[in-house]
């Protein structure tokens, strides 16, 4: 176990060097929402942002997430500088975007890339909740669709880590249309025999749940992740009562038949390697 941790830490440090700066890490202590114990940020980061005491999974920046599952040095980012043109002329939106771009080193919330996992070439993407709650607007839709189309062209398996509040309010109807755009692209990729592994992380809701994120051949989720269509607050307002504990958790979704497996972060890379091998000859390869 300690060997794996050391390996992760080494990979993270390599990533830091690659980006010429530290990831969004504050030096201060924080309290684990899972067990209430104080945690040192640096140790948390070294432990893949999972509480060492109770296993609570903290949010993970998109590039850090991809670095954790990809083989060292294989990460090739795509469309890194695609930004929104504010299609609805929404007041204050460009300023908000610029502010977040400065704060996070992201142009928008989705990071797409090609890379290798256990030696196998893959197309990967991750949403980042630090950037407008991972919400899907035109940039997310366009980047993801380009990635899916590339995966179809190059016969690559597709792995997407979702973490999103849903549609991007500031892009209104254009956001809604991204649900159709990305779902249509997944459909084409899938019909041609492409493998799509959808990994749901905390939280995956709204328009992301109701489009590409639910369309995986294999559906995985992180422990305790909130996964649902309507947010808990909206449901409570609708039905006029408190939701039961664990409602819409990853485990709840597995129980109700929507997820194949709940996979702790420490095991996600190994799980992906295994799934890619299982979809090798006789599976995706055969179809094409």
């Amino acid at each position, binding site marked *: 176990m300690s060997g794996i941790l050391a390996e992760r830490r080494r990979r993270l440090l390599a990533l830091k060097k690659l980006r010429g700066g530290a990831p969004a890490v504050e030096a201060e202590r924080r309290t684990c929402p899972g067990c209430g114990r104080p945690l040192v940020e640096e140790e948390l980061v070294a432990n893949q942002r999972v509480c060492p005491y109770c296993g609570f999974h903290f949010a993970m920046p998109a590039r850090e997430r991809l670095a954790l599952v990809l083989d060292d040095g294989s990460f090739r980012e795509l469309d890194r*500088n*695609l*930004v*929104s*043109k*504010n*299609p*609805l002329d929404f007041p204050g939106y460009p300023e908000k975007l610029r502010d977040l*771009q400065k704060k996070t*080193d*992201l*142009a928008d919330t989705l990071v797409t890339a090609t890379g290798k996992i256990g030696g196998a070439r893959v197309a990967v993407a991750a949403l980042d909740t630090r950037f407008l709650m991972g919400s899907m*607007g*035109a*940039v997310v*839709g*366009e980047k993801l*669709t380009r990635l899916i189309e590339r995966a179809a062209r190059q016969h690559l398996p597709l792995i997407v880590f979702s973490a999103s509040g849903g*549609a991007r*309010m*500031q*892009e*209104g*109807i*254009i*956001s*809604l*249309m*991204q*649900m*159709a*755009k990305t*779902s*249509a*692209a*997944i*459909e*084409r990729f899938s*019909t041609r025999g492409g493998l799509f592994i959808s990994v749901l992380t905390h939280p995956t*809701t*709204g*328009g992301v*749940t*109701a*489009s*590409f*994120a*639910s*369309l995986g051949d294999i559906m995985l989720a992180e422990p305790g992740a909130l996964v*649902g*269509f*309507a947010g808990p607050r*909206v*449901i409570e307002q*609708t039905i006029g009562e408190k*939701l039961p504990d664990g*409602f819409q958790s990853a485990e709840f979704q597995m129980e*109700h*038949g*929507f997820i194949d497996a709940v996979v702790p972060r420490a095991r996600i890379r190994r799980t992906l390697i295994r799934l890619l091998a299982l979809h090798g000859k006789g599976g995706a390869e055969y179809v094409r």
Partner: protein
Amino acid sequence: MSANSTNENTHEVTAVSADTTASAGAPRAAITVGAPTAAERVALARHPGRPGTAEIVEALFSDFFEQKGDRSSTDDPSIMGGIALFHGVPVTVLGHRKGSNIEERVEMNFGMPSPEGYRKAQRIMRAAEKFGRPIITFVDTPGAYPGLEAEEHGQGEAIARTIELMSALTVPTIAVITGEGGSGGALALAVGNRVLMLENAVYSVLSPEGFASILWKDASRADEACEVMKLTAADLLSLGVIDAVVPEPEGGAHENPQALYQVLDTYLTRELARVTKMSRTAVAEDRYRKFRAMGAAAVKRGRA
């Protein structure tokens, strides 16, 4: 649906004012004298007397055979679907149904479908694909139902699969936003080769109330939200989200439903002629390209 109306040739509407007939060929501008504000259009789109899917199907189609049930567990009446003749041609019709009186509204959950409703829509779409019937949908929902059971039964998955399925059909699909086009629950039936919208209908990522509540933590600012959301037919036409605006009679569709049916019939006839000319492969390709382009112009290379 009134008890005394007939199912036969009801699209042959006679009680239409000369004014409406004249404007049937092309969209006229929104009512010029005191054009409704976006918030007023939201109110018109929700008007209880506004013709719904059941009334429109009754008026424009003949020999409607309703297909009920999701073939798994239940029938959700908030989505209505079936086979009918449109000017003698068999088509599949699908739409959200809100109900026309209080009993019906409760039964149809005010037009908010459950996952089972979307799964029913899927199996009806598959039947249309099998028998080569064009699909005409009528979209009128505040949104998919955000309830406990709906979540347990996979509301997100049901909508996602419906969108995915509709996006790839090789039979032509024409969607008409007739009232409220609310969120993913509306989009699930609106992946059309052609998307039309009634003049006073609205189509948005979320209800104005929900939008104001999420963005400003204040649902009472809904009217303000209407103005910034770009949810009117004219807005959506200029954004390229819809293809045509179907003009409504003065004061809104509820003021003269017969006039609306006449105009809508003309539009559907024209759109159907356009899409049925294409080969089945071309139909799927046309729809893919249409939605592939959505938002593509809203991004640019810039500094990160």
